[in-house]
């Protein structure tokens, strides 16, 4: 297949026109730092909850670089008992070991958070045994007893909320799928065991903190893309499943 210069430029122009302004205010500002989008990390007993704190900073940087979303670069952490959890509808939870049962109040508050519009991203290193997985399922059963984890269909909006994805990405390739718990027409809980945070994380010097196995840098890029899609899904929900988008997406997936 040949690609002429004209075709290439046309493609570039089309890509740039894809919801992209030709002239925008050069600095996106929001209403100050407090108005920017924040991802709260969920604190829970033990030390493992803060295992990927820097990862969210890197993901936010990539979000700002790749999309129109205005993100905070510094994200806070909360326990479900804190009112501040309701400052952001997006909560990130990381872990790789079993943890103690949560108090009933946490279940109630997390249930309200998720039911009224919140999204919880659960990220883990699934290769470290099933302790975390069992703990997560135990708690989620109490938080959302009406729902249960189900593998997301490849046509789920998550896989097309910004990038068209067919891979999961992550530091590891433990599970070839993402699970979710639905509330109404959206997945309020997204659960991956491929350690997306591990793929996003850099040190202060900008070096990647963890190696990617087995897929190398492409797998890391896919992890970022999945992270972008997750944040897009949290903010736009099923926007990309609106009828107006379907023909375009089907055409590109052929």
């Amino acid at each position, binding site marked *: 297949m040949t690609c002429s210069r004209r075709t290439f430029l046309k493609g570039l122009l089309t890509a740039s026109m894809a919801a992209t302004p030709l*002239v*925008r205010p*050069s600095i996106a500002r929001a209403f100050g730092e407090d108005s920017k989008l924040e991802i709260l990390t969920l604190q829970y007993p033990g030390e493992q909850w803060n295992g990927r704190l820097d990862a969210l900073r890197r993901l936010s940087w990539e979000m700002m670089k790749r999309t129109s979303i205005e993100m905070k670069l510094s994200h806070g952490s909360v326990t479900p008992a804190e009112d501040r959890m309701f400052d952001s509808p997006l909560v990130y939870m990381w872990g790789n070991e079993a943890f103690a049962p949560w108090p009933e109040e946490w279940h109630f508050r997390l249930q309200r958070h998720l039911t009224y*519009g919140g999204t919880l991203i659960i990220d883990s290193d699934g290769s470290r045994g099933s302790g975390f997985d069992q703990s997560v399922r135990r708690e989620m059963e109490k938080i959302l007893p009406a729902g249960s984890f189900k593998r997301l269909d490849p046509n789920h909006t998550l896989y097309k909320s910004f990038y068209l994805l067919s891979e999961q990405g992550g530091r590891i390739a433990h599970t070839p799928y993402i699970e979710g718990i639905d509330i109404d027409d959206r997945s309020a809980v997204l659960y991956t065991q491929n350690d997306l945070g591990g793929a996003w994380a850099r040190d202060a010097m900008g070096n990647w903190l963890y190696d990617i196995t087995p897929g190398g840098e492409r797998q890391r890029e896919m992890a970022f893309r999945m992270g972008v899609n997750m944040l897009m899904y949290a903010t736009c*929900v*099923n926007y990309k499943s609106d009828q107006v988008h379907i023909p375009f997406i089907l055409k590109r997936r052929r």
Partner: protein
Amino acid sequence: MNLPQLLGMQGDFNEWSVVFRGLPQGLWAWLLWIGLAVVLWAAWRNLDRIPGRRQRVALYLLRIAGALLLVMMVLQPAIELRKVLWRKTHVAVLVDDSRSMSLKTGGDISRSAAVQAWFEDHADQFAALSEKYFVDVFSFSETVAKTSLQSIEKGMDAKGRETGMYRALSEMAGRYPPEDLSGIMVVGDGCDTMGFPEGGRRDECPLPTGCDTPIFTFAPYGGGTEADLAITAVRYDDFAFVHNTMSIEVDLRLQGMKAQTLRLSLSREGMPVTAQTVKLEPGKPRTVSLSFKPTKVGRSLYEVSVPVLAGESVKRNNSRMFIVKVIRDKVRVLHVAGRPDWDERFMRRFLKKNPNVDLISFFILRNLEDMFWVPEQELSLIQFPTDELFNTQLHSFDLVIFQNFTYRGFQMEHYLRNIARFVREGGAFMMIGGDFSFNGGNFSLTEIEDVLPVRLAPVGNPFDGEAFSPKLTDAGQKHPILRLDRDREKNLGLWAALPQLQGINTGLLLRDDALLLAQHPSLTEPGTGRPAPLVALRRVQKGRSLIVAADSSWKWNFDQVRRGGGPEFYNRFYSNAIRWLIKDPDLELLQVIPGRDSYRPGEVVTLSIRALDDDFLPAQNTPVTVEWQDASGRVDSSVLRTDEDGAASLTFPAPQVPGPLTIKASGDMGGDTRQTASALVLVDEGGVEFSRVAVCGDKLQDLARHSGGAAYSLTDSVNVQELPLLAVRARRIADREDVPLWDAWWVLVAAAALFGVEWWWRKRRRLP
């Protein structure tokens, strides 16, 4: 001496008969006769032991005689004396004086003139008929009126708006007892337009009078050769949904001319809507369906029409007007968000989950500075369809929302004019704040600024990021948009308790014709010192606009959850805002509601007025001026005063001029502006009267056939004296009296004597 005299009765009784007043009916009659038979049988069997046949028969007769007397007491026999009179019966002559009788049929004179001439020619025959019968003459159209042969002979004024032939026949049935009516003569074209009165038609006898009275019909000529193209009927739904396809069916009829190919047109208030080319064959009615999408909410006057052809006998049946109430099935909302954010997220979810909203939303997911090379096939992004949204499809929306969106970068400067025009022509526009909104979106000096409730003043920083609690203005405390609770104090408390907003757009100057509902508690407009607007609205010619100069109203939704609440206040605020923007009638301060869509000329038009003050409470004792203008331009008016419910009503006769009747009401409900409201009704003279110009000979023949009469043309040689009418004389019982035979004392004595004789006989003869 006859029987009444023998019985000593006074009066001119000339008939008598024996009647049984106590004769039981149905099952009781059967029981009586069976019981009587059993008694007779038992009485005979009981005499078996009596020696001697003659003795048995004698005793049996005594018993039978006694029993019969007792039965007589039960049956209450009487002699009915009657005074019977015989008199002349009636012949009803019904003459059509509807407007269709003004048509010329097969000659140079009108149908009514032909009828007049026929009555003149047959005056002697009617005079002779009047000696045998009472000849009662009526004219009929939409009503029935008594008239006379002399009046008919002088000429008729064919002005009736409709032809109620079956109703006139029905009225005859109510006017005369069946035995008094020997026949009905119907003189007219037979083209009934009003149908049968309720319950008047039966399958076995389709005549409202019943089929016992012969009907003789006389049609003005028998032709059907009048040249005419007519819209004979239009079928449509009274209401339709805006932007949804609506169909109407139009019945067309061509007669008296060769086949035609013509254009059937539909217009709304004078503007073409759709048209269809139709081929019509003479004498073959055709139904044509027209489909269109109403684009305007409210009551609209539509008109279907066909061209007037040369030589047509009637031109007014070439068009037909009707009113359709166009309502929303759903509010069509275009939501354009400048970037994904929580404010946009909760707004989209609110709109998406609202069953009354049909949502098209676009989020700008990527900016120019975000650009890096990724193959298009790996992205789900689509091109922002500016031309389709803001040009070709713009008017299919009811509401356009710009939420933290700037037009810059989309080469859509020239579309801003379209949006402004969309608003002025009746659309709704809402701008929700953010760093890309108002000054941040460079909307200053654009056509969008022209339709906003605020002007945009240049400022250094187009927003202030400090958290604040909004302050409701006096107008805001009353306005339904900010009404979270009906109780005013409670409402204020709810607003005070809502989570704080994070930042406000600055540099906004409230326009003079805008209404400020909520403001910043401390920030002011640049230069004026007035409070910085947060929520403001404006009526822009036919449309409306509203602003919310913050990008954190989502906290009214999600942060309420933290407090144990839910999104209800957020949802209520934006629901109220949308209802006001799309002009929900319930939020109009002044409303005019016609009793019906259409009225006949001269018929009483009824209007209901509802008025609310600027607190949206019933405006009591408030003068409201109502003006109505007919199709000729004549204006009448009346001043009403509302009652304690803010209501008033008005009745007036519909103008004689057919066509649209425009009604406008205005009143000072409080506040700064005088409120106005309008309504539209149709003055319709009943277009069906001329829908068929040919004589309806088929209907007249049906009438005659079912009733045992005959159908004639006025040109037929008929002697009305020789019509096979029913009996000349009617028998009527003028007086009636009973002479009872059973309640005399001797009946009981006789019965007792008979049973006593039998007892005595048996005792004396020592019989068992």
